C-alpha cells in the first residue's frame, strides 16, 4: 500500500514537472516580452532592461526554470537590496499586472471556484444519478426516451450559449434573478444563492447529461451480471437486489469519475466564471491570458494540473477502498 502511494506520488511529481517544463517552454519561447508591456508608453530601453532584470527574465532559460522550481519548493527572493521581496514557498511568482503574489491570488479566488464547483457537482451528481436510474428502470419506455433526448440536448448545448441564454431569460427578460454581485454567504444567503444558481446550472447541465448516460449504462449492464441473477436466485427482495447488487457496483465507477471531474472543475470554470463575472480561478486565468500575465497563467495551469493529478490519485486510492477487487501491490 505504502509503495503504491509512493509510486503514485512519484508519478504525479513527474507529470507535474513535465507540465511545469512544458508550460515554461511555451511561454519562454512563444511569449512576448512582458517587460515592454509593463513599461507602457514613454518607455526607454534602459527601463525595459531594468524590468527584465527585476523579473529575472534576462537569465538563460534553464536558470529561470530552476529558479522557478526552487521557488515552488523553497521560496525565492525577487530583486536585491532593500527592495528585495521574499516569496515564501510555494512561490509561483508575482503577477506582472498587479504585482500580487500568485499564490495569494489563487488562495483568494479558490473559495469562489470551490463554491461553483461544489454546487455544480452536487447538482449534476443528483440529477445525473437520478436521471440515469430512472432511465435504467424504465429502459425503452417513454421516460427513458425522454431523458435520452434531454441528455443529448444537454450534451450539445455549448455552455456559453446556455449561460448567456439563461442570463438573458432569467435576469434580463423575466427578472427572476438579480445580476450577479459579490456577496458573502454570511451577509446575505439568499442573494449568495441567487448569484451562484446560474453558474451551477450551466456547469451542471452538460455533466448531468454525461452522468445520466453513464449511470444508465452501468445500471443496465450491472443488472445483466450473473451475480444479480444469483442474488435473485437466493430469493432476495427486489429492493435488496437493487440496493446491494445493482447500485453499488453500478455507481462505484461513477464515484471515481466524479472525483476527476470535480478536481478539474476546482481548477476553474473559465467560460462560466467569465460570463457570470465570478472572480474565481477560471476568470483569473482568462484575464491573465488576455493580459499575458505569465506568472498567473503558469500558476493556474499548474494548479489545474495539480488538482487533476491529485484527483486522479485520490480516485485510485478511493477505488482500492471501495472496490475489493483492486488489491494494491498485487497484480491480478
Amino acid at each position, binding site marked *: 500500500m505504502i509503495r503504491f502511494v509512493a509510486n503514485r506520488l512519484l508519478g504525479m511529481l513527474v507529470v507535474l514537472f513535465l507540465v511545469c517544463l512544458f508550460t515554461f517552454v511555451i511561454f519562454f519561447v512563444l511569449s512576448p516580452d512582458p517587460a515592454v508591456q509593463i513599461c507602457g508608453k514613454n518607455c526607454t530601453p534602459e527601463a525595459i532592461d531594468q524590468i527584465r532584470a527585476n523579473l529575472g527574465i534576462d537569465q538563460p532559460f534553464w536558470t529561470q526554470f530552476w529558479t522557478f522550481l526552487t521557488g515552488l519548493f523553497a521560496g525565492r527572493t525577487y530583486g536585491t537590496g532593500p527592495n528585495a521581496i521574499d516569496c515564501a514557498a510555494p512561490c509561483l511568482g508575482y503577477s506582472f499586472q498587479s504585482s500580487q503574489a500568485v499564490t495569494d491570488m489563487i488562495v483568494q479566488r479558490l473559495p469562489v471556484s470551490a463554491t461553483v464547483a461544489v454546487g455544480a457537482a452536487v447538482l449534476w451528481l443528483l440529477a445525473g444519478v437520478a436521471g440515469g436510474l430512472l432511465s435504467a428502470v424504465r429502459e425503452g419506455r417513454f421516460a427513458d426516451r425522454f431523458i435520452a433526448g434531454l441528455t443529448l440536448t444537454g450534451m450539445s448545448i455549448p455552455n456559453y450559449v446556455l449561460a448567456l441564454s439563461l442570463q438573458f431569460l432569467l435576469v434580463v427578460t423575466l427578472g427572476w434573478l438579480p445580476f450577479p454581485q459579490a456577496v458573502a454567504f454570511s451577509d446575505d444567503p439568499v442573494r449568495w444563492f441567487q448569484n451562484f444558481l446560474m453558474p451551477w446550472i450551466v456547469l451542471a447541465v452538460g455533466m448531468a447529461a454525461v452522468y445520466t448516460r453513464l449511470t444508465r449504462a452501468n445500471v443496465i449492464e450491472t443488472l445483466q*451480471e*450473473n*451475480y444479480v*441473477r*444469483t*442474488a*435473485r*436466485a*437466493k*430469493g*432476495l*427482495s427486489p429492493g*435488496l437486489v437493487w440496493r*446491494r*447488487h445493482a447500485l*453499488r*457496483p453500478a455507481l*462505484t465507477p461513477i464515484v471515481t469519475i466524479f472525483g476527476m471531474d470535480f478536481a478539474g472543475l476546482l481548477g476553474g470554470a473559465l467560460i462560466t466564471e467569465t460570463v457570470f463575472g465570478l472572480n474565481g480561478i477560471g476568470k483569473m486565468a482568462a484575464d491573465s491570458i488576455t493580459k499575458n500575465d505569465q506568472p498567473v497563467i503558469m500558476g493556474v495551469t499548474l494548479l489545474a494540473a495539480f488538482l487533476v493529478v491529485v484527483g486522479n490519485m485520490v480516485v485510485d486510492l478511493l477505488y482500492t477502498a471501495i*472496490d*475489493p*477487487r483492486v*488489491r494494491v501491490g498485487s497484480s*491480478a
Partner: protein
Amino acid sequence: MTDTLLQVRGLTVGFPNANGPNTVVNSLDFDLARGGALGIVGESGSGKSMTSLAIMGLLPKGAERTGSIAFDGTELTALPERAMRSYRGDRIAMIFQDPLSSLNPYYTVGTQIMEAYRSHRTGVTRRQARAVAIEAMERVHIGDAARRVDHYPHQFSGGMRQRVMIAMTLSMEPELIIADEPTTALDVTVQAQILDLLAEIRADTGAGLVLITHDLAVVSEVTDHIVVMRDGDLVEQGPAERIFTDPQAPYTRMLLDAVPRIDDEIGLLRTMHTEEGR
C-alpha cells in the same frame, strides 16, 4: 408430501419476436423424485439453461414460459412473484456455471452466504447468520472457514468459489438443488471434488438434484435419471442405466458414440454424419 419433488409438464420457453414465437424449450416433461438426481444433457444451445431458469422463474427479459412446473405439489407457474421468492434460495437453490461472475465482487463471501439466510429466516441476528455461514463453509471443506468467511470472492480459486456457491445453497437446507454446468469452468481434478461434494450433500440432506451438463460421463456418474435435449426438444429420458445401455433415440446413440472414452478402444469416433459431414 408426495414422492415426486418436481414435476414438469409441457414446459415451453420462447422468445417471441417479429418472426414468430422462437421457441427454445419445447414441451418438456420430466419428473424428479424426492431425493433423486436428474441429469439434463444436450449440446450447446439445446435449452438446458433455459429449462433451469424457467423452474426458478428467473428467465431473462422477453422470455415467455408456458406449461406446468409443480414443486412439492405446488404449481410454481401460478405463484405470484412474492411467493415465488420465498421458494427461491430457501427450498430451491441454484448453482451456476461460472463461479466468479456469479458472486458479487463487492461483498465478502460471508455476507453473500448470510444474505440469503437472513432474508428467509426472520429474526436471525448477524452473529447467528455468521455462524451458519461458517458452518456451511466448513461443510463444503473450506479450511479455516472462520477467517475465510471475511474474504472476497476474488481471493478464492475457481474450485473454492464453486464451493462457496454450494455453501450458499447449503445454509438454507434446500429440498432441490439445480446445478447448471457447475463444473464446466473447472479442471478435472477440481470437478471430481465438486461432484463428490454434491453427492455427499445429497446423502446428508436428502435434497433432490437437477444436474445440467453437456458431459455425458459426468451425468453417468452422478445422476439416476437422464433427460436428453436437443434444440429445445426432449429427445429421450429414462433411468441412467437404460439410457447408457440401451439408448433409443438415434441422437442419443450418436452422442454416446461421439464421447471419447479414456479406457475404451481407440478408433474413429462416430459423429452425427457418417464421416465429418459438412
